[in-house]
């Protein structure tokens, strides 16, 4: 059933309850195959374009990374390490500058 109401606040409490009941009782919904692969392609495309700003600070002589608040969970940091996909660890160390 199509509804002309687009926001939750458009519904009266009784209507909202009816929507939730219809939601519970609906048949299983699987993603249509073409939509599924289109969404997967979109996810892949976004991942490839994503730039994650990692910040570094020197704390007591040690390099310590931090991530922005909404960084994807596929990226983590631990001290001077950046962990990708919970598998790959990039360890960054600072070399002392050599005077010429």
């Amino acid at each position: 059933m199509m509804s002309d109401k687009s926001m939750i606040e458009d519904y009266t409490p009784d209507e909202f309850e009816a929507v939730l009941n219809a939601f519970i009782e609906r048949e299983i919904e699987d993603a249509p195959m073409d939509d599924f692969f289109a969404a997967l392609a979109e996810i892949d495309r976004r991942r490839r374009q994503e730039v994650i700003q990692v910040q570094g600070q020197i704390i007591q002589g040690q390099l310590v990374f931090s991530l922005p608040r909404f960084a994807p969970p596929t990226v983590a940091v631990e001290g001077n390490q950046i962990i990708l996909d919970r598998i790959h660890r990039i360890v960054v160390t600072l070399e002392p500058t050599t005077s010429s």
Partner: protein
Amino acid sequence: MWGRDWVIVLEVFDLLGESYVQDESRKHSFSTVYREQIEHPFADGYIARLLDSEEDLEHIAPRLSGAVARQIDPRLRRAGLYDPAQLITLYLLAYCYYSWDIFARGYQFEVSIFRDLTESGIAYIAHDIRRRAGRLSRSDVVVMGYEGDIKTSPYFLQTTRTKALTHDFYITRLYDRRRRKRVRVALLSERFWREIDGDTIATTIEEATNVFPRVAQIPFADGRLIVIGYEAWKARLLARQEGE
């Protein structure tokens, strides 16, 4: 919906999970409210009844899941977290309904796959879904030493949006519009595919739908995924296991 719309819906759901309601004592994120008020008290009982039932899952699961869903509203009201006059709590209520629905249908699907693998004579190790600790295990199922995950298609997309695909195989279910039927699909890592072997058709992610039910090889992230019908995957597995 188009691919981009799906992804936007999934983003909205994740954002809702980070939203919060506040009472006198503290802030409660939607995802925490859902876990504490709905999933923790009801999940074990729901799954135990699914596993112990000999009824058709398509019949019993909606009944069991619906019985829990009907407790969401009164439970949140009693906890002082739902008041129809407070708009934000309407969103919380909807979030809890949706989250429970994803959870309940996900385990219904998982149990149906376990039953089917058993009936098909596939040797596998399933994680213990009766307890939360087991449900949080790294993988849902292990076949021939390869770790796999079983997910409904909306939940597969939801997790894939924010998590890397680190398993060797994924079992999901899609709706095939052309054939007008639901189909179960396996997505395999190249590593696992090499074990069971066979020809693939290299294509783009979007075109996999046109290649199916032939076996497609699609690029994803830094590697490739093999897309194969679940029945064809099982037949190859069985042949491989019986040959061992």
